[in-house]
């Protein structure tokens, strides 16, 4: 994108009654937001927060909350009762599913951080034959819709004997193309070549440089990648459903869908479960919201 690409039509003839245009000679980011902007944004924020809030309201209420009008708007006091019901359901394994989700998301996140920063470092700062085409290959794999291979993946997992175990959902996610790409971009820009080189002259091995120089320098990027990976892994539904459904090892997303199946669904119970399974992510957003925002926005400009 450059200034030269700017479209020719952007110079319409000045029209009458547009005197205030002179006042708008500022770029949007220098124009203070007016009342209507705040109102619109506030409505949007309410719209964004509403389902979460209402999830909480219903999970703290009795059955009547979902069978009365006008709807209830304030939380009730039944949260622990509903929660107790969810946790004591026999075939859902809700408590175990939370543990499973923590294991899966935790292992995947840790592994993605390690392997992606390692590969990203190699692609960014080390010279080896084929590094450019190999990096191109990584970028190309980003565009492949992963659902295409789900049937065959199931067969592969079957041969390995991993279907129905956590390995089936952990192993394919241990290192991602997006992570490698993201770390490479960051390392190229933030780790000075001189630093890597002087460490080499001092006799440091590649792994030592990675550990002592690269890792400390890329902490902000690791935080963003870690948060994004954790959220994505925790929320993953389709593949866990395929491989884990009906087993004793569901992830929390599979367990929730199990709660919502059957001929009569009790929503205060379902949503109590859903709320508990959403809590870790709310914590993630509260802790790392700014970083995630920055990470997504940086990624957008580079792409």
């Amino acid at each position, binding site marked *: 994108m450059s200034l030269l690409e700017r479209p020719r039509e952007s110079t319409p003839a000045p029209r009458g009654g547009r005197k205030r245009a002179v006042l708008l000679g500022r770029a949007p980011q220098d124009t203070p937001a007016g009342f209507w902007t705040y109102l619109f944004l506030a409505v949007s924020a309410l719209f964004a927060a509403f389902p979460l809030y209402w999830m909480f309201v219903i999970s703290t209420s009795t059955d009547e909350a979902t069978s009365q009008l006008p709807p209830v708007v304030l939380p009730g006091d039944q949260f622990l009762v509903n929660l107790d019901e969810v946790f004591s359901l026999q075939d859902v394994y809700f408590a175990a599913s939370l543990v499973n989700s923590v294991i899966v998301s935790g292992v995947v996140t840790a592994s993605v951080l390690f392997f992606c920063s390692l590969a990203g470092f190699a692609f960014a700062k080390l010279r080896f034959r084929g590094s450019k085409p190999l990096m191109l290959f990584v970028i190309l794999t980003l565009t492949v819709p992963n659902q295409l*291979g789900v*049937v*065959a993946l199931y067969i592969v997992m079957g041969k390995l004997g991993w279907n129905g175990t956590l390995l089936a959902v952990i192993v394919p996610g241990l290192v991602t193309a997006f992570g490698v790409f993201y770390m490479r971009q960051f390392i190229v820009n933030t780790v000075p070549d001189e630093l890597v080189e002087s460490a080499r002259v001092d006799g440091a091995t590649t792994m030592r440089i990675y550990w002592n120089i690269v890792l400390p320098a890329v902490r902000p990027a690791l935080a963003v990648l870690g948060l994004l990976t954790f959220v994505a892994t925790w929320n993953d539904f389709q593949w866990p459903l395929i491989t884990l459904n009906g087993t004793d090892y569901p992830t929390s997303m599979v367990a929730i869908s199990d709660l919502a*199946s059957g001929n009569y669904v009790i929503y205060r119970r379902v949503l109590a479960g859903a709320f508990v399974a959403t809590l870790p992510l709310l914590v993630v957003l509260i802790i790392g919201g700014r970083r995630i925002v920055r990470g997504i926005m940086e990624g957008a400009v580079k792409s």
Partner: protein
Amino acid sequence: MSTTRAAPEPATRRPRPASGRSLTWRDRLHRFDARYMPYLMIAPFFLLFFVFGLFPMIFNGVVALRHWRLDEPDLTGWAGFENFSRLFTDSDFGNALYNTFGIFLLSTVPQLLLALIIASMLNRRLRAQTWWRVSALLPYITPITASTLVFNVFFSRDFGMANWGLGLFGIGTENPIDWRADKLHSWIAIATMVNWKWIGYNALLYLAAMQSIPRDVYEASALDGAGPWRQLWRITVPMIRPVVIFTVVLSTIGGLQLFTEPMLFDLNAQTARGGAGGEWQTVAQLIYKVGWKDLNLGYAAAMSWALFLIILVVAALNTLLTNRISGGRK
């Protein structure tokens, strides 16, 4: 950035032992380190990608050409193009395709337009700027399973908030809308969920691009008499075109693979029917049903390939179309 890469000496130029002398352990280590370490470092990605990414994709093609049923392991052998030709006469597949495109249209267009408007508002000088941005991500981090179940209550026929809200405006007070009874209403309900999830995320992508537009472009246009709305369409959108195209491609790939929302919108979620008459069954859902409820993996694999090709074509078409609309004439 590649210019800075010329600076360091190639890693292979380690001090070498004088010829004739045997290599010390340390020299060997360094030689190994310089030559092979980079490959070891990138190996995990390639290994995993080949085993769990590339191989399944290719193998999927093989499965699609064979008889492969989970309930009849003995039934093997080549099916030829039987699984593929069946697609053309399968009314379930046609119906699922129709639903997928219907929901896709109802979700993508409003989603990206609203994201654009919200982004242009976030692009103003705001108080509590970070707070507004983080709140835009609330839906993005919420599990789709959880939010869909809330929307189920929202869209319930008798006591749903959607009908109650419409009733305040006098709509459907006599006959409340049954959101699961027909295609259009179920599509709207599901599209609402998709929009809710992705508007904020796309808005942040647009916002990032908007902030890299040079300020003087706006100054010039304002002197020419362009108001904010005109500026948005005549300057901002054409200048962030690459990101707009990126989001269109992303939402095409995501939208045509829609799975979780239609799955859980069903009151009996795990049947994967998408409504009593398949009113909102999407292709991804049908693949799941054919593969793991009807246990016909061969046919499900063929369907995946068909979906993949459709996604490719539609993504390419949408890229062209977006390029046109957002101001790229050539």
